[in-house]
């Protein structure tokens, strides 16, 4: 598979603040790629580098085979973008903005536009200044989705949308992928990423700290094992592969990534009851963002 987006060791500073600090990102053709991270991690800066609005201080960037900073504007005709906070020209109506942006993109598809306006239940005759945040977001989504694009870049696109509209958005992303588009979805909404993305890159402090399919990422995070044993356990805390452990009489709760050793040792004490909870995306997130780097116990959540 070819990489539609390839960032290598990108750095970008604003004054003394380092927004990107050696960021690597690869997005293959046809995938929905999630960019996951909290506010200020560098997601939007990454996207602005991809769009050619910011010039990387160092590193190489390739988008659709071109350097986004020097590429001819035509390259941007092959992608579509929705910012996280869509600002519009206050005197123009939503319909006018959608048409204008489609014409700038290089082609209008009236039928597709009207269908999207209907699906998102947008009133295109209202002046932009009277739109709520969610409605402005809809204008941005309709503008981006109504044109044909090989690469769809979405920066926290559902901020302000109600749950029904979020569903419509998810359908649209699936349809875009089925039509062969590649999607980059930046988000801090874990369920959205979980439902939509084939692969995920986790961004922290201007770096991608891990990337892969959700299954692969889960493999890196610890699983919580809770067991009630027939005999009182001994020597468990010296066992390699256990990250956190709490022993309360016959009851043991531990977190681990190495099941073979842990399970055979637990079995030697006789297992009466056992629950194994795989890490959720929240755990992954906490795993990467916890200052100490260890997963938090979720005993309360799984009980």
């Amino acid at each position: 598979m070819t990489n539609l987006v390839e960032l290598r060791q990108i750095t970008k500073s604003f004054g003394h603040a380092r927004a990107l600090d050696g960021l690597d990102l690869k997005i293959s053709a046809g995938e929905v790629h999630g960019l996951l991270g909290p506010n200020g991690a560098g997601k939007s800066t990454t996207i602005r580098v991809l769009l050619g609005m910011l010039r990387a201080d160092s590193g190489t960037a390739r988008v659709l085979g071109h350097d986004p900073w020097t590429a001819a504007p035509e390259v941007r005709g092959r992608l579509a973008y929705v910012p996280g906070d869509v600002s519009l020209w206050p005197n123009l109506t939503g319909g006018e903005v959608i048409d204008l942006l489609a014409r700038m993109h290089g082609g209008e598809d009236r039928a597709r536009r009207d269908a999207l306006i209907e699906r998102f239940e947008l009133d295109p005759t209202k002046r932009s200044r009277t739109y709520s945040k969610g409605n402005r977001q809809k204008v941005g989504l309709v503008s981006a989705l109504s044109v044909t694009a090989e690469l769809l870049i979405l920066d926290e696109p559902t901020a302000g949308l109600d749950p029904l509209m979020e569903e419509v958005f998810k359908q649209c992303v699936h349809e875009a992928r089925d039509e062969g588009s590649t999607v980059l979805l930046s988000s801090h909404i874990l369920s959205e990423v979980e439902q939509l993305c084939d692969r995920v890159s986790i961004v922290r402090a201007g770096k991608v700290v891990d990337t892969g399919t959700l299954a692969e990422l889960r493999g890196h995070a610890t699983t919580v094992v809770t067991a009630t044993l027939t005999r009182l356990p001994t020597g468990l805390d010296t066992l390699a592969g256990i990250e956190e452990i709490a022993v309360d009489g016959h009851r043991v709760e531990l977190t681990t990534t190495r099941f073979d050793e842990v399970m055979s040792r637990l079995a030697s004490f006789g297992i009466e009851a056992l629950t194994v909870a795989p890490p959720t995306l929240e755990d992954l997130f906490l795993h990467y963002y916890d200052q100490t780097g260890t997963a938090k116990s979720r005993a309360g959540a799984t009980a």
Partner: protein
Amino acid sequence: MNTLTGTRPMLGLTLRRERLHGSAWYVLSGLLLVVIAAGIIATYPTAADREALAESVNASAGELFMIGPVSSTDVGGVGLWRMLGIAAIFVSLASVLTVVRNTRAPEESGTSELLGSAAIGRAAPLAATLGVTAAGSLTAGIVASVGFLGIGASAGGSVLVGAQVTSFGLLAAALAALTGQIVQTARAATGIAVAVVAAFFLLRGAGDAIGGNAYWMSPFGWIAAVRPFAHNNAWMLLPVLGLTIALAAVAVWIASRRDLGAGLLPERVGPAHANAALRGPTSLALRTSRGAVIGWAAGALVVGLMIGGVSSTVDEQIDLALGTGAGSGAGLVQVALYLSPLFAAILGIQTTLRLRGEVTSGRAEAVLSRPVARTSWLLAYAITGALAALAVLFAFGLGIGVAQLGTDPGSFGVLAVAGALRAPAAWVFIALTTLLLATIPRAATAIAFIVLGAFQALEFTVEFRLVPPEALYASPFALVPQLPDGEPHPWQTILLILIAAALAAVATRSIRHQDIH
């Protein structure tokens, strides 16, 4: 809950927000007035000088229109004569901007909603803002009074000068309070209030040029009619105060009754589809600037009609030192035309600077993530600025020409283009603004207006005879065709166009290296 509940905490908040911005406007305006008064007194140091000045001014319709009559030839009288019109503009602007910044602007941006949950009455923010602008206006008045005492004017007259300055600030604040209640956007509220201030200013000029009781045409005429150092008619401030209170009361009454975010004028729906002409960055820039340009052009047409009308009915000659050295010739029409590119440049610079607003609001992202070259995006605003300046200048010249059709139909053709031909002077400043936007965008607004102000200051130094009149040859305003009576300056005009083109060309190269954020 009373609609004025919470005015006191709002007063604290408004004072805190305005402690730098607002106080700088008012205090510096007051100081500027004193400096101008001191400047003119230094230029005409003896009583004989001032009497000669008064005689020539009071006989000239042009001077009467632009500045007003000299009613007393003592130090205070001449200082007041030169600065009162400037006071009307600066102190009024300070009040208009401060009021809109603290009433309609936060309402439009949504910050007012934060206060909606607090125990704050609907009219409290407005009442607090009026309190703060009143204090600011009073400060400007005190600065002016103390300054006049300092330059040797009589005590009673100096106090009245301060009262006049304060009256401008109070009246404009009440006016902006009302426009801010009627329309829904801060831009429109400021625009309408400034337009009314401009109308007051021009009507005052017309009233003084006509003479007699015509000063009643404008509230600014009422303020001027106090005539400190001569008649000392303090009671003329009463109608001004009455009008101010009436405007403010209506504003507070509306504020107490309307919904948050609403205006008196309802929001209309618009077209669901864009006009076929709206298709790229230039058409977008033209479309978003359209309202302001039409407003300015209509204003310029009216001013042109007025100046043309006044100068043809009162067939007097103007004797302003302004620009005469550079061959602009004499006459109200000539001086007004000489000054017109300055105002066109202000509109042009403002229009071009919208590009910065596009970036800070995030709208630039929507355009630049499409296949739009940065250079065409940048030039879209430069071209719109240049066209805006041209439109205003054309409207102004046309107004003068139409007004003089009755008395001087033969010169209609020349007058109709005399404004438009001066556009290259404004274009130089627009091109400079474009270059600033492409290189140091954050400082562009400040530097563009400082440079424009520096050339305006050059005019003042010539007027105060600090530098020889030939210095004006360095000013773009003096290098454009000085029609109908002055030099046509063909080569100089071509040179200005080339300078503007060169600045724009450098700007298009520089924008390629700028981060957009």
